[in-house]
Structures are given as structure tokens and as C-alpha cells.
């Protein structure tokens, strides 16, 4: 069935009261879950999975998918407003988004985030509509060597995020790897660095890291400096992006969509990686990269587009092959199975009504989310005028519960507090966290791919030379890495290492 006919059928399947209602409901819950720090789409999907059993397949799947990409819309909200990421995929948005908020331009940042998300979401859906089968074979081409090369590329991107001392940046990357290693070695089942406790056997929960390192440390920093009745932004300079904002943002939006889509498609990618790589790209391409970190709107538009596009990208292996790329799509797979569908290579041909119905619901969901988030910008901006001492208990409690929601384990809270205190100290000493976080996210797949590649390869590291895609990616990484040193020299005449 060709794409246009399929899509027409999908819309006709979608336009029933039940399907539309649950698509809308999913969008709302997704936004809510994205805004709340800590709790993410994974937890919300796990909680609401049973609800979908009573619903029709399109309604249930549509709702769950809407929660997933809705969270990418809402996640930027707290990042921009209070510098506490709502999602791991929105950590990067906080860098420039919050700087803009402090300058009174929160409205522009929030608005641009919503619009980038919408544009990217829709564009990536168009790609999904027309190119799914083709792209499925791309996903299959990524074996262990290609995955490793991609992770290396992602890692090199973090070098670009290091603004200050490079040694400290590399140190943070190594620490990020180490933190990710804590737990059970999946290849041979051995405990690594778990200090004998079962809690650490499970590894360190990423939410604890994100909320602790960014959220709790931010709260501690604010406790120090914010006076009693101070608000987060004294003046609000308009609620809408200006014309120059648009001019600056539309290209990052496009690039972010493209990049995010492919990074969502390949195994080991995902919205978090996509947002980081997009930020790096924008910073590298910009004519005046010093603006980044101080309120450059490209630093909001690009990553927000990337994380939304990555969601659609991640759906492709799920629908065309029945292979989930991450924990959230694994849940969607489970939901499909519970509906009596076995996703696999035959899914689209066997159940075109369901596939196209869900795709149609994703188009409509993006529209709902845009209509939902834009008016909310006004509401959120007013929140900045609430005295901090009223806001902060709420933020603190939400962060705690959000972190707890991941595994219902008190241990995660202790980890969060630990990272919060350490994060506070490190911030004082001008260490940056982004390299730590991206290393933490990439490490498991990186190590696994490396070991698999080494096992598969008859001649050690040369396997990367034999595989074209992997070779290209590695050469690209090496070039980028070399360029980092060149650019840094020109950025910092003091030659500060």
C-alpha cells in the first residue's frame, strides 16, 4: 500500500471520538510528565500501560506515543525556567534557554522550543511516512562496529561542549564512563564496582544523575544567592520570539530535525544523544560561538528539534522490524503485543489500519501539542514572577518524587543527594556536567559494541577499516577531534589547557 493511500486510511481510522480523545489525553499527560522534573515518559508509559488494554489499538498506541513525544515538548519548560531539566533530553536546552530566561526572554525561548518541536515532529513524520521501508534497511546495516563508530562520534561531540578547562572536561568524560560501568557487566555477568550491594548491582539510575547533578545542585546554588522575595526574572521582555529569533532559528531547526531523525533511527541513538549532537553542531557552525551558553536561541531551537525528530526515528525500527531501540519503544512493543499484534517485518502489511492510524495520530498529536504548549507559554512565564521561596519547596518535592518514580527505590534518592552535593562543589570549581552526562549515556552501548566488534573481528581493530560505514564515521570523528583543538586555540588566546 503506498504511502499517500495509507495515510488517508490512517486518518479515516483515526477520526473517531475515542481515538482522538486519547491522542489528546496522551499529549496532555506527556507534556505534564515532561514538565515535571525527574519523571519521564518511560515511567508514565509503564504506569499507563494497563489503561490501554481496555482501549482500541489505535487509541492505546496513539496515547502512548503521544506521551513519548509530548514529553519532548514539555521537557524544555523547567530547563528554561529554572535550569532544572525536565528530561535527560532537555539538559542541553537549559544551557541557553535558562540564560535567555534570566534576560527576560523566557517567552521567546519557550515559544521557539515548542515550535521547533512541532516542525521537527512533523517533518520527521513525513520522512517516516514515505521512507520507512528504506530506512529499515539502514537500521539493519548498523552492526556492532557501526554502533561503536557512532558512539565515538557522539563522544567527540562532547569535546565541543567543554567551554573551560579541557583537562577537567576529559576528566568528567572518564568519570561519566566509570559511573555508567558501575553494575553488572552484561557480557559476562560480573559485578563491577558494586561494593557488594545489590542496589549498585542495578547500576546508577540516570534520573538520579540528571536531577542530582543539575537539579539539586541548582537549588543549592540558588539557596546561596537568591534573596527572600526575589523572583527568577525581574522583567519579562515579550512573550513571543522576535523576527531576528526566527531568522536565526529556522536553519538550526531544519538541521536538528534531520540529525535527530537519523540519530533516533540507529540503535544506540535516541533523543538524548540527538540533542547533544545538535547543540554541538550549531555551536561548531555558528559564526560567533561565544554567544552559546549566554542566550543563543540556536541552542534552544536545534536541540529541541533534534529530540523530537529522534522520537519518530525511533519508531521506524519498531514498526518495520519489530525491534525496539530503547526502553520506551520496548514498552510500545509490549503494548502492541498486548493488543494481540505481533510487530515484525509483516506488521505494516498485515495491519495497515493500525500502523497508519498510529502515524496519523502522531501528526495530529503534534498539532495538539503545539496548540497546547503555545498558550501555556504565557502561564509558565508568569511562574517566574512567583517568589522563589514559594516555588522552591514544590520544585524540590517534585524532583524527589520524580527520581523515586524510576525504580521506587529509596537508594536512588541517596544517589541523587550525593550527586547534588558533589555537583554543587564541582560547579563552584568550574567543572562542567554535560561531558559527564553524555559519557554516562553513551558508555554502555560504546563498551558493548567495542567488545562485540573485537570478538567478531579476525584482525582486531582493523575491523573498523573493513566496514565502510564504520570507517567513515571514525574518520569523521578523528577529523572533528582534531578540529576541536584548532578551534579551542583560536577561542582562547591564553592557551589555557
Amino acid at each position, binding site marked *: 500500500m503506498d504511502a499517500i493511500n495509507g495515510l488517508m486510511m490512517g486518518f479515516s481510522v483515526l477520526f473517531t471520538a475515542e481515538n482522538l480523545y486519547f491522542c489528546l*489525553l496522551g499529549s496532555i499527560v506527556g507534556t505534564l510528565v515532561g514538565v515535571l522534573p525527574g519523571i519521564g515518559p518511560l515511567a508514565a508509559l509503564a504506569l499507563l500501560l494497563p489503561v490501554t488494554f481496555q482501549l482500541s489499538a489505535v487509541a492505546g498506541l496513539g496515547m502512548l506515543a503521544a506521551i513519548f513525544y509530548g514529553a519532548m515538548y514539555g521537557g524544555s519548560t523547567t530547563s528554561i525556567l529554572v535550569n532544572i531539566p525536565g528530561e535527560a533530553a532537555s539538559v542541553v536546552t537549559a544551557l541557553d534557554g535558562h540564560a535567555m530566561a534570566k534576560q527576560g526572554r523566557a517567552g521567546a525561548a519557550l515559544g521557539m522550543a515548542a515550535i521547533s518541536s512541532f516542525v521537527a515532529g512533523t517533518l520527521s513524520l513525513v520522512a517516516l511516512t514515505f521512507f520507512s521501508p528504506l530506512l529499515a534497511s539502514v537500521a539493519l546495516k548498523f552492526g556492532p562496529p557501526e554502533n561503536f563508530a557512532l558512539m565515538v562520534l557522539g563522544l567527540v561531540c562532547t569535546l565541543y561542549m567543554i567551554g573551560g578547562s579541557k583537562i577537567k572536561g576529559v576528566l568528567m568524560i572518564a568519570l561519566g564512563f566509570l559511573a555508567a560501568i558501575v553494575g553488572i557487566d552484561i557480557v559476562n555477568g560480573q559485578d563491577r564496582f558494586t561494593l557488594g550491594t*545489590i542496589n549498585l548491582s542495578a547500576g546508577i539510575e540516570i534520573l538520579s544523575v540528571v536531577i542530582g547533578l543539575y537539579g539539586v545542585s541548582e537549588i543549592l546554588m540558588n539557596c546561596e544567592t537568591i534573596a527572600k522575595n526575589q523572583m527568577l526574572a525581574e522583567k519579562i521582555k515579550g512573550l513571543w520570539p522576535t523576527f531576528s529569533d526566527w531568522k536565526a532559528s529556522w536553519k538550526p531547526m531544519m538541521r536538528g530535525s534531520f540529525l535527530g531523525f537519523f540519530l533516533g533511527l540507529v540503535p544506540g541513538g535516541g533523543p538524548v544523544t540527538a540533542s547533544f549532537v545538535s547543540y554541538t553542531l550549531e555551536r561548531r557552525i555558528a559564526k560567533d560561538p561565544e554567544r552559546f551558553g549566554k542566550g543563543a536561541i540556536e541552542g534552544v531551537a536545534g536541540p529541541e528539534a533534534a529530540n523530537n525528530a529522534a522520537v519518530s526515528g525511533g519508531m521506524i525500527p519498531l514498526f518495520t*522490524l519489530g*525491534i525496539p531501540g530503547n526502553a520506551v519503544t520496548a514498552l510500545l512493543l*509490549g503494548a502492541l503485543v498486548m493488543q494481540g499484534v*505481533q510487530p515484525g517485518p509483516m506488521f505494516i502489511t498485515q495491519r495497515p489500519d493500525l500502523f497508519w492510524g498510529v502515524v496519523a495520530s502522531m501528526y495530529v498529536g503534534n498539532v495538539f501539542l503545539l496548540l497546547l504548549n503555545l498558550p501555556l507559554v504565557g502561564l509558565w512565564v508568569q511562574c517566574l514572577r512567583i517568589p522563589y521561596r514559594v516555588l522552591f519547596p514544590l520544585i524540590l518535592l517534585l524532583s524527589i518524587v520524580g527520581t523515586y518514580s524510576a525504580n521506587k527505590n529509596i537508594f536512588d534518592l541517596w544517589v541523587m543527594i550525593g550527586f547534588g552535593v558533589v555537583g554543587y562543589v564541582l560547579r563552584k570549581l568550574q567543572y562542567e556536567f554535560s561531558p559527564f552526562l553524555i559519557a554516562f549515556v553513551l558508555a554502555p552501548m560504546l563498551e558493548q559494541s567495542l567488545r*562485540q566488534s573485537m570478538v567478531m573481528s579476525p584482525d582486531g581493530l582493523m575491523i573498523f577499516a573493513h566496514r565502510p560505514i564504520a570507517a567513515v564515521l571514525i574518520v569523521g570523528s578523528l577529523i572533528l577531534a582534531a578540529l576541536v583543538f584548532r578551534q579551542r586555540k583560536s577561542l582562547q588566546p591564553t592557551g589555557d589547557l
Partner: protein
Amino acid sequence: MTVRAMFRRPLAMTVHATVRRLLTVPKRPILRPHLFATMRATLSVVFFAAFSLAVSAQPAPEVAKLKPAGFPDQPIEYTVVYPAGGGVDITARLLAKYAEQASGDKILVNNRTGGAGMVGHAYLAKQAKPDGYTLGVVGNNIWGDAMLKAQGKWALSDLEAIAYLKSDSLTWLASTTGPFAGKTAKEIIQVAKDKPGTVRIAVIPGTMWEYLIEQVETQTGAKFLRVPFQGGKPAIVALLGGNVDIAQGFRGEFDSFMQAKQVTPIGVASATRLPSLADVPTFNEMYNGQDYIWRTIHFVVVPKDTPADRKAYLAATIQAAMRNPELISEYQKLGAYFDQSLTQSKALAADLDALAQKEREFYVKTGRLRP
């Protein structure tokens, strides 16, 4: 309202004014308060309806008569030690759906993940209260976990099996394209013997995947190149992408690919040929053996010391669910089969224990465990 004015007025008025401002200022439409309330009400209604739907069903009579007084007064938790959406999770959720219908009780499926199941298993064995409100839907890899990895922190004797769900046999798969297309298992294993280390096979280290390979290698002198993976699906992806030559998996994982004619099963590790895969030889056949039996068995456990009446009630609930033809067909769609020796078993815990002992013997024989 200026900042200074906010300073001067007492808090209550400030808050009131702020809230009013929040809700009435907009130059663009904002969701009105009453709309919010309606939406929240709808949400609550939906959730409530979704959850109470099951509770209002009529419990089956043989279950109702075993119901202890006053039990349950809170939802019963089915613990799953793997992430939501996975095979065991789906098994548990399907079971919960039909068990709710059979008993009229509310059941919640809870995922306690981490450490490839270690965290959840330890929780069930040592931390869960033996009051009948917690039970675990587990697979037989809990035996390996207890014997090889628990390091004395918990043991199989801390848990008691109360119901058997289903089984799925480990199967070897080859791609329908590529150098080994159309070959039988014996032919491929012969290649692995003639050219050791060239045939790549997917393995999940520390699991029955590895044990089966070991058995074949010991029997035939073949030598495979074992590429480690985390699960069945990634291995199948690798097979399709030409990164491994043989993948291993369970029917539930490879069924859709088999139907799409992208993979084909070449050997099954079961006692006799499976009716659903009648033309696929078993390893027992191929090598005239009896030990090439590897399958997942899903069953339900409770912490030991759970009161006998509650245990009997829970067991009856699950057995009633397992008799429901809808659940049986759902499980069959997942590729499972029902081992008759376990469905008809009169002493399930003892039978499963016997199987666990056989696995223990294997570990001792292969030097993984001291006797």
C-alpha cells in the same frame, strides 16, 4: 502589580492576587480553570473506570470458595523482574488481566528491574513480606541466578512455586539469505568444526544460550565464535544484518521474522519435536542425546512462609485464569507451549525443584559449581 507591592501585602493576598492574575491575564487564550477541572475529572474517571472494570467482574466459583476472610484488602502485586514491555512482563500482564476476571481482585503489575533480574529476585526472596500480597512471575533463569550469582544472599528455598504458566524452547536460527541459507544445523556445525572460530553465533553469556553452545561444542568438537548480546531481538537484528551466522531465540521473539521468511529455525532444544515446528529437528535427535533440553519456563512464586490459605487462594486464581481459553490462545500467539508434565502436576513445587536439580547437575558437571 509591581514587585514592591508584592513586598508590602501579606502573603495570602499576594498569593490570591497572583493566582487570579495567572488565570485572568492572558492576551492569548489560556485554559480556563473550569476546563482544567473537567479534564482532571475525565482523567480520574477514565482511570477509575479502567481499573474498576476488572473489579466488577464475577469471580469464578472454585476460586471464591477458597477466598480467605478479609483477604485481599489491597491490590495484589505481581512482581516482574524485567523491564515493562518485555516477554516476562507481557506474560505477567496477560495473566493479571485474566486473574482479575477470575477472582474479582485488583492486581497491579510492578516491574522491579535491575542487574538482569538480580535486584528483583533478591527482593522477592528476602524483602517482600510473606503476606500474600506479593508474588513473582519468574522464569527458570532464577535457578541459575540462585545457584551461581546469589552468593549466599538468597536461595531458591526462600521462594515457593505455586503455579506453572508456560514454556518456550530455545531454538537456533539461520538467515534465509547469506552464506548459510538453506543449510541444516548439522551442516553448519560441521563447518564450525572444519574451520573453527569462523562461524559466528550469538550468545547471552551466563545463560542457557551459552550452555547449549557448550554442549554442542563438546559433543562435536566444533568451535564457534561467540558474539555476546543482551537479548534475543538484538541477536536477530545482527543475524539479519549479516553480523552473526546463527542466532538463538524463543518462538515469541522470532515468530514474526519467520513468517516474513527472513529467518528459519534449524534446531530446537526440546525433548521431542514441537508440534508447531514439526519439521525442525531437535538436538536430541541430531546427537542421540537426552540432555539438549533448554527452555524458559514461566511460573509464579511466593515468598516462603506465606500463609497456606492465601497461597491456595492465589494458586487457584491463577489456575482458573490458565484454564481460560482466551489466555491460552494469547500465550500460544506468543509462541509458548504448555508442558503437560507441569500443567498436570500434582506437586508443582517438587517437580520444578527436580528440574532445578538437573540444572544444578549440569553446573557441577561443567565445573561452574562445586558439588
